[in-house]
């Protein structure tokens, strides 16, 4: 039970990261390949401030947010005027820098030995973990709600316009660089916040938690779920992390020798799924993009009409056939 709560909390962490990546890549078109960097930065910042400087969770979190906010802003300023390939490589480089510094700066992070123990903000006896899970659920729910709201706002339209054709958007008076910078800074900082919130979950932080595999897992969730749909990220995490890490690893009876293979098999399958999705279903499970309400209603009407006429024509042909048979 305790393990299930932990897995579900981790699932929420991935959902949060994937939703934020959806905003970055699915809406504005910023390919952030350093997700684990921002997440790990937030997580280690909370850990270091709490353990090494003996601050309370809340104080550590505030400092962590300031730090990731500042770094996201600086990185955004440096990279967001570049093309997509450069942004992708630059963010990846950033995440590797974070991972390397975590290993090398032992006086802060304890290096490969590991940093711990990180305390929960509030302890409620045996119910601490379940309560923390509910708290995470509330926050991630709020995030998903905001993104759903975002999709029907004026703001989303500008973001999609920038993704489609940045120069054209600028020629209509949209300050594209500023909008990209705001979105990038905000979402990367939120990735840091999610990292900070993951610190007490993990309790003991080691450098092998911030590996590119995490960035990759978030990307595959988004690609599989559908990068342009407001719910794609969430669906994608359930289909990958939920299926593998929770259902299979927790509930399937695996022998010890198989248990060693499963994590590698998982990453192999993730890779294969990502290749398959990009080649055969590039828009993911939920291919729809931003549909304004009027368009959505029309589409439903059209489908209903098509279905009705299909039924009518089938009935007609059946009647004709019956008539012909009788003659």
């Amino acid at each position, binding site marked *: 039970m305790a393990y299930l709560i932990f897995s579900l909390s981790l699932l929420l962490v991935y959902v949060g990261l994937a939703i934020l990546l959806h905003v970055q890549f699915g809406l504005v078109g910023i390919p952030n390949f350093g997700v684990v960097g921002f997440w790990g930065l937030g997580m280690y910042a909370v850990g270091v401030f709490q353990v090494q400087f003996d601050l309370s969770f809340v104080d550590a979190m505030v400092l962590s947010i300031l730090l990731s906010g500042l770094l996201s802003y600086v990185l955004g300023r440096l990279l967001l*005027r570049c093309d997509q390939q450069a942004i992708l490589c630059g963010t990846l480089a950033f995440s590797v820098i974070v991972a390397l510094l975590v290993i090398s700066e032992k006086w802060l992070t304890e290096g490969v030995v590991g940093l711990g123990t990180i305390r929960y903000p509030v302890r409620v006896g045996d119910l601490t973990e379940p309560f923390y899970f509910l708290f995470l659920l509330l926050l991630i729910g709020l995030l998903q709600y905001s993104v759903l709201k975002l999709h029907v706002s004026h703001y989303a339209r500008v973001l999609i316009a920038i993704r489609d054709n940045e120069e054209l958007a600028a020629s209509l008076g949209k300050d594209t660089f500023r909008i990209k910078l705001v979105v990038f800074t905000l979402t990367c900082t939120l990735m840091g916040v999610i990292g900070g919130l993951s610190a007490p979950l993990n309790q003991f932080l080691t450098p092998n938690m911030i590996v590119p595999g995490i960035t990759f897992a978030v990307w595959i969730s988004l690609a599989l779920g559908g990068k342009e749909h407001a719910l794609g990220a969430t669906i994608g995490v359930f289909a990958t992390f939920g299926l593998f890490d929770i259902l299979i690893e927790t509930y399937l009876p695996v022998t010890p020798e198989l248990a060693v293979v499963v994590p590698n098999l998982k990453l192999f399958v993730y890779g294969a799924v*990502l290749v398959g999705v990009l*080649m055969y279903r590039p828009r993911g499970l939920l291919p729809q993009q931003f549909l304004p309400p009027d368009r959505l209603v029309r589409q439903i009407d059209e489908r209903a009409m098509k279905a009705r006429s299909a039924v009518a024509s089938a009935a007609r042909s059946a009647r004709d056939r019956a008539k012909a048979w009788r003659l």
Partner: protein
Amino acid sequence: MGLIRDAIFIGVLQASPLVLAAIGFTLIYYLNGFINFAYGETITFGAYFALLFNVSLGLGFYLSLIPATLLCGLLSVATYLYIFRPAIRKGVGPSELIILSVGLSFMLRYGLVLFTGAENAFLNEPPIDYYRMIGVGATNVQLLALVLMAVIVFNLYWLIYRTGFGEVVRALANNEELARVSGIDPHKVSVRVWFIAGCVGGLAGMFTGVFALVNPLMGWNLILITVMVSIVAGVGSVRGALIASVAAGILTAAITLVTKPLYAEVILLSVFILVLWSRRRRVA
């Protein structure tokens, strides 16, 4: 003064696999215009193919280079024919192609782990002699590798800049339509380029392996620096890749001599981000 001499010597010695990888990577980047992260696995597989012939079948190290290199070339061609070419034909965009290559990279890497396990492995090195020259030491393997790689790099350089084939590749990279009209078969040329790039990447893996050790992550560790070097060099400049990778090797060696090796990579990556920034789109 001694520091600079040491840095240059060690840097050149250690950078030699990077030079190979960077040139191979650059060829594909030049021709198809996307960053192929799965090239890292070509490097890893090179080391493992060498391991197969060298350790499992007991061939000498230098002898096992030959079949391992050819197998890597075939692997690279296979990824092109069965993954990247169909994807490009389906109109997968450049960003998505990169993500696709990362997916392929994970698939190959963990497919390999499923077979071999994730433990470190070692190639059987030829007997080692130790030489001291101009005040610095090097082993015979390092020196031989250096000579061998210099020969390979020279040949590649010749191929790209001095032969008809190089001209065809450059024509194709610049304007596929025009090249097609003038009677070049893009398919044939692409297959050859991917084969050569695969061979070169495999060799890079084998030399990395013989200098240190072989494990499934070695390609991923090398590919980051390789991508950086190629991008800094400018899209598809083989000459630039050559210079940039040697420079990266020397810089790494210099920083490593002064402080920790981890800082070398941090500084290199930070410099890389600043280079990207300096190439940002100029705003009117």
